[in-house]
């Protein structure tokens, strides 16, 4: 190797060391900028993928479509009515809280988003969505569907964000078990089996918790945390008492490998 190449190697190594010493905020900003650059390609790819997938779905008869449309319209009316009733109850609840000098419950706003790509890396469970800070999204905001919790935002770009899924080992959620006072920390597993929709472990339960298979697990909503209380996380698959605590294996409420439409909860903090 001649002298020029040695110098190039040394310069690259020096640059790599300098970059690795950057703060996490600076790294996140760099990644956010890069997301902005790749975003049009990801969106185009996602649209193509969606259209290809829609070819099979599009082959429905007119009767089927009409029936489906009618069903959706009825469901929409039903949901609107329920939503209105719940809003009234929330307003009443806040009034009563104010009367009792409790802190008003913060009002959450949901921003709909679409998954545009799934992480190609082997070791992390993340997806990219088509909403960013221009849509009012910030980092560390919960992402969910009508079924349950999906994860939380990490890096937020201009029009796209990275969502860390709850099946990732480093996504930790304070959780409580339905019908008991048991609380623990839910996290994903480092390596997920590809045949399943992912499994999570609920740690730090009491040894005597004795959770039953099928029991539902919800977010506990600890103060200062990211996730609001009462969002479905999954169901217990098995429970075992360990030397110091109890551990439950939990199956996610929804198949995170195929989730497409999600909502980001803004204003939760």
């Amino acid at each position, binding site marked *: *190797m*001649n002298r*020029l*190449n040695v110098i*190039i*190697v040394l310069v*690259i*190594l020096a*640059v*790599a*060391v*300098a*970059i*690795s*010493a*950057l703060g*996490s*905020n600076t*790294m*996140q900003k*760099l*990644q956010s900028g*890069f997301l902005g650059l*790749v975003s049009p*390609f*990801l969106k185009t*790819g*996602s649209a193509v*993928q969606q259209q290809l997938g829609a070819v099979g779905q599009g082959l429905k008869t007119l009767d089927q479509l009409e029936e489906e449309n009618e069903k959706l319209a009825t469901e929409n009316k039903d949901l609107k009515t329920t939503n209105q009733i719940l809003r009234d109850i929330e307003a009443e609840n806040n009034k009563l809280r104010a009367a009792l000098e409790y802190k008003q419950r913060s009002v959450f706003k949901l921003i709909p988003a679409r998954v545009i*790509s*799934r*992480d*190609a*890396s*082997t*070791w*992390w469970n*993340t997806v*990219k969505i088509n909403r960013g800070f221009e849509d009012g999204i910030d980092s*560390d905001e919960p992402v969910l569907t009508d079924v349950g919790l999906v994860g939380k935002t*990490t*890096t937020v770009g201009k029009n796209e964000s990275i969502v*860390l899924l709850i099946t990732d*080992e*480093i*996504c930790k959620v304070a959780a409580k078990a339905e019908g008991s006072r048991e609380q623990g920390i839910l996290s994903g597993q*480092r*390596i*997920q*089996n*590809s*045949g399943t929709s992912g499994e999570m472990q609920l740690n730090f339960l009491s040894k005597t918790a004795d959770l039953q298979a099928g029991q539902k697990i919800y977010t506990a909503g600890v103060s200062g945390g990211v996730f609001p209380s009462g969002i479905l996380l999954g169901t217990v698959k098995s429970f075992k008492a360990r030397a110091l605590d109890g551990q439950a294996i939990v199956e996610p409420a929804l198949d995170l490998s195929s989730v497409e439409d999600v909502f980001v909860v803004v204003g939760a903090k």
Partner: protein
Amino acid sequence: MKLAIGWTSAALAVFFALIIQEFIPPIHALNGARVLLVPLVFCYAALAMPTWAMLLFAALTGFLTDLMFLHIVDGQVEIALGWSMVYFVFFGLLAHGFQPAFLRGHWWLYIVLAVLGTCTFLALQYVMICFRRQGIVFNDLVAWRILAPGLIAAVIAPLVHLAVNQCSNFFPDVPGAPGGYRLGQ
């Protein structure tokens, strides 16, 4: 000029490889192994480019890869920006050592290096994650996730070689040598 075209084409190939691999679903028959295209593209460039151009290409590939895979949660960086630059520089130097044999017609060297490059990239990533998370988990699934992408690379590599050789025919002043297409020569 030819080198500039070759280098730019390789840079674009890495950029699009990063995007395309996001849309390739995991292969369930291989225990959820993913298809990694970036090491494949880089490996070819390392065998085809002059040393200094390969080194700059390694820096770019590493930087883009890190930006795509950067994982920051609660202010904690799992694998810092810059490590892939170091990896691709050293792997590039290793691969580049086989360039004379590759250009003499031993194109299978590309397949071997693509497998090696893909597996070592994933293995090193996993080792770093284990250090960061303070606990080593090693089982069959981990082995599959590291080795199976290498097997996939072995299947794709001849196609990449064939495609690049076909592309070289569009540039009459760049010889499509039986051992490969040397970018910029």
